[in-house]
Every structure is written in C-alpha cells, then in structure tokens.
C-alpha cells in the first residue's frame, strides 16, 4: 500500500466521524423470525459502489435455513464485500438485506447484527492478538455483553468446559495459553472459526477458511463445516475448487458484483458462462 493509501485509510471520513454517515440509525435488535420462510437470509438488489466502481451490482441472493452454501468467484468479484454488507461493516447504496423475515440488517449496527446471530470469520484472520487462545474464545462466548456484567462475572465450570471443548474441536487445546498473535496462520484461522462457534450464531459467514492450512487441517475444516450445516446455516467463500467439491451442496458463482450462476458443483462447472469467466482461465 502506498503512503497515500495509508493516509486515506487513516482519515476515512466514514470511519472517523460516524455521524457523517446518513441514514444508518440502528433499530433495536429483534428476535430472529425465520417464520414460515425457508430462507434465513434475503439479499435483494444490493449495490455497493466505491468511488463509482460497483463492487456489488444488483446482487440478489437467498440462503436457506440450515444449508451449506459455497460462494466462488474470481478475485474482486465482491464476495467479501457481500459479507461486509451482511455484517453491517459496509452499508449498501441500494437494495435490501433481511435476516429472517423481520431484521433489516442495513439498519443495524455491527454489534446488533452479531447479537442477532450472525458470526463471521474474516478473510484475513482477525483475532485478539494479545489475548490467549482461551481468552479469545471466552470473549466470543455468547452471553450478556454489558460492562457491569463483565466486571462481576466469573467463568463457571460449565463455561470452561465449553471453551475447552471448542478448543479441542479446532485443534488448539495444546496451545490454549499461547498468545493468539504468536499462532501460525492456519491456527489463527481455526481460532477465529472457534470464536464464531462460541457466539452460537444461526448464520456463519466463513471467508476463505483454509488459506495457510496443511492438507490434514483442510480435511478437518471441511468435516467441521459439514457438521455445522443443518443446525446452522453456513456460507463459505473459497477459491480452492477441490475443497468446495468436498463440502458443497449448492454453489453460487459471483462475477463483477452479481450472481453469474447457481447450482450444484456439476452444473456450475459445465455452465459455459462460468467456464468463460472463471474456470476456463
């Protein structure tokens, strides 16, 4: 990144002075109502542009309750931006984004969205670097979130067990007292997946989970994601075709900010449009 970019990043108006953003008043977090609909997430006609460049262009996408959906697409297709929109990090210029029937995600804060039951693993692993693996999971553990509660709360045996179970699930039990900043890239990926699990979300957004993992770790991650589907809805973004083939039921291909194709891996792979822009390269 050039110095100028750095400067821009530091002085981004929308981050420094949030009040300059308009129309983003948060509504009280409601109860998720997936109601009669079979879908848990509704993205309709979402457009996001950065300085005129449309990262998302009239994107419409539905995620079913309990499904494991894979999203693929070339670099810059807008996959991470889509997750930014869902988690409240980026506000769309137009379009609607509903979680269940009633929760309008475009009007909720990141915190409210997280509390409503959406957990996210970022593309670049983001953990709390100065805290141990154990503490990272403790901080992510679902439960009351207020300062006064945090001051007086003490970890119960049950909670400790839960955290240790999750540490075992993501293969970090040995390293639980290691500071997260010192973990390997793959371990950070897993730690972040563990954090998402501790939030007990209904919808998991997992952005490029296997980068930096060994073959064995990749297999275990695939197993883990498959085991989560059903009870949770899971959206996975990945570039690794083999990995996707091993876990996917439905695949959505994004290209230039909108959906290019959707279907089983087989169907998608044989779609001439997809071959042209992506798989054929």
């Amino acid at each position: 990144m050039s110095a100028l970019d750095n400067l821009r990043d530091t002085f981004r108006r929308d981050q420094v002075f949030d009040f300059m953003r308009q129309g983003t008043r948060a509504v009280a977090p409601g109860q998720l109502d997936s109601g009669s609909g079979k879908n848990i997430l509704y993205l309709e006609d979402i457009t996001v542009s950065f300085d005129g460049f449309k990262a998302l262009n009239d994107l419409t996408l539905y995620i079913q309750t309990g499904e494991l959906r894979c999203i693929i697409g070339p670099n810059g297709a807008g996959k991470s931006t889509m997750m930014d929109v869902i988690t409240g990090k980026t506000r769309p210029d137009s379009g609607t984004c509903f979680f269940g029937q009633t929760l309008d995600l475009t009007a909720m804060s990141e915190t409210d969205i997280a509390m409503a039951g959406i957990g996210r693993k970022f593309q670049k692993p983001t953990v709390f670097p100065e805290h141990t693996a154990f503490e990272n999971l403790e901080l992510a553990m679902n439960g009351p979130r207020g300062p006064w509660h945090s001051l007086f709360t003490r970890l119960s045996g049950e909670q400790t067990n839960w955290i240790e179970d999750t540490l075992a699930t993501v293969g970090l039990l040995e390293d639980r007292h290691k500071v997260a900043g010192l973990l390997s890239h793959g371990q950070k990926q897993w730690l972040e997946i563990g954090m998402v699990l501790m939030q007990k979300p209904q919808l998991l957004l997992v952005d490029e989970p296997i980068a930096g993992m060994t073959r064995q770790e990749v297999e275990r991650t695939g197993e883990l994601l498959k085991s989560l589907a059903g009870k949770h809805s899971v959206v996975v973004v990945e570039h690794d075709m083999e990995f996707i083939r091993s876990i996917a039921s439905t695949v959505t291909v994004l290209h230039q900010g909108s959906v290019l194709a959707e279907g089983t891996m087989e169907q998608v792979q044989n779609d001439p449009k997809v071959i042209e822009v992506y798989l054929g390269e």
Partner: protein
Amino acid sequence: MRDSTFKSAFSDRTAKTFMGVLLGATLVVTLLNQFFPPDSPLHVSAYTVTLLGKYLCYALLALSLDLVWGYCGILSLGHGAFFALGGYAMGMYLMRQIGDRGVYGNPELPDFMVFLNWDELPWYWQGFDQFWFAALMILLVPGLLAFVFGWLAFRSRVTGVYLSIITQALTYALMLAFFRNELGFGGNNGLTDFKELLGFSLQSDSTRVGLLIATALSLAIAFVLCRWITGSKLGRVVMAVRDAESRARFVGYRTEHYKLWIFTVSAILAGIAGALYVPQVGIINPGEFSPLNSIELVVWVAVGGRATLYGAVIGAILVNYGKTIFTGVMPEAWLFALGGLFVAVTVFLPQGLVGLVSQRWAALRKQFPPKKTNNDTLTPAEGEAP
C-alpha cells in the same frame, strides 16, 4: 485462569508488593517526621513530606491515565482537566472553610467575590461548606463531564488522533473559561489562602503527614481497584477493544459502552488525585488545565511503561523527582529535557522502564535458569533428537 474480584485483587502478589512498598515508605516518612527533632539528621522536613504527597497525587493521576491509554488505547491529552476539576471542587470547600478569616473578613463570601463587588454566593457555590457535598462533587463533576464528553465522542466513533485533539481542546477550553473572573472561580489567581481542612490547620506538620497518609491510602485502594478491573473480563474486553476494536464489535460488544465506562472511571480517579493535591500545594488555578500538564502526564506513563499500572506510578514519581532536581538547576531547559525524554522512550523503550527491567530480568533468567525448572527448559528440538 481466574477472574479477579475486588477481594482477590487485594491479595494478589503484585498488589501486595505495591501496597507494601507504598505504605511502608509512607510509614517510615511519617515516623521520621513526627518522632525526630528538626535538628536530627534523620528528620524529614514538612517540605519533603508535602513533596512526597504531591508525587503520590501525580502517581494516582498517572494510574488513571494508564487505565484509558495503556489498557483501552484511548490517548487522552486532556486528563489534566479532570484532575483540575477535582482540585477546584476541593478548593471551593477549602475557600468556604476560611469563613471570616479572609482579608475582607466577609463570613459568607470568599475574598475574590468581595473584590468583584458580588453581594451573594453564586448558586453553584452552595453546599460547598459541607465536606460530604464537596466530596460528592469531587467524584461527580469529573465523572459527569467524562461521561457526557465520552458519550458524544465514542458514540460518533471519534478515535485516534482526532480523539486526542478534542480532549486537548476540552482542557484548553476549560482553562480559558476558568481564567475569566465572571465564571466565579477566582479568575487567574484561582483559589488559595486556605486555612483548614475538616478543622485541621493546613500549616501544621501533622496535617501534612495526615494528607500524605490519605494520599498513599487512596493510591493503594485505586491500585487494587484498577487491578480488579484489568483482571476481570471487563479488562479483557477493554484490551480487546484496544487491539482490535472492530473485531470486538463483530463478536457483539458495544465497544463505545466499554470505552465510556473506563473513561468515566478514569476521570473520577483523576478528580480524586486533584482533590488530594490542592490542600497539599495550597492553591488551584486555571494553570492546572494547561494542555501542557496533560502532555507531561502522558510522558510519565510512557516513561514508566504502559498497561502495567505500577509502571505509571513509577514513571510519575521518577519524572517528577527528576523535574524537582532539574528545575532547581536549570529551569529553562526542563521542557527540552522532557521532550527529549519522550522521544527517547518512544524510540528506544516502547515498553517503558518497567518493560526494560522485565526484559533484562527474563534474559537473566534464561542465562541462569533456576534449578528446579532445569528439565523443562529443554527445547522441543533437543527433546526430539534421537
């Protein structure tokens, strides 16, 4: 891993050591002042007692800054404002205690009001003749200001340099306001000529010693309180906000509430430090709001070492001791020395003196490992070698 409670924070080793050293030193100074005649070489003068009391007030102020800066990453360049407000609240009580012993002998009005031809006490001076009321205001005024200011700033997600700048603006604006006579706080002379506190004469040695003890106790309690806070889950969330604020939001924490909480608690501690300071130095004036004071405070914490609590205390005492010596020798150069110190610490000692010592200590331990852990120090590579 154990969550701390107020009780457990009292009995942990760091807190015990801290309190032992602090209260032990205070006790020794007290005894040397009270039980040795002034001509004895062991006698500690009232001047020294008060100087120590002053350092401890600064230490408490530094502790409060470490809480927000070291642990939460909020670089407040206006913390002196909360210190000064606590000081003014105490000063107002002390003014009311003067009664008719002022120059003008007015039993109701402080001298400066008589001088300004005011004929009655402004409403906001009411109640300050009562110590309990003044004590309440010492906590409430800085706390409330921090709460309102923090609420506006953190809710709007003002962070980093911008936040530092507006905290600096806050203390500067208050300084200008307090300089004005019409505001009713004594203008640029401030509040002074205090006579007594709770009926004890401020001139007497025993009161000075009493104030030193009170300050040491306050510092000890504040230290334990901060240990409790930073050792609890709240402390871990606050540090998470410091290291990765947006991550903390994405796991569901309202980071602005945590910042507001810690900022307000910190301001209250700063206010207490100011209130203890004023009777010992005998004056409070708008100079205490000077932006420079708040910047000096940042240097103390940086020199001692951030996010350890005791580092801030050590930094405050050392730098101020240095200042006392230095300003005696060549006063003009002090600011340059301070600036140089800050640059040197930032470049060479990012963890401060405390960090340097613990690094050295760790290196020593490595070189001369204690016997009982000898077996564990085998590196995995050595252990696996056939």
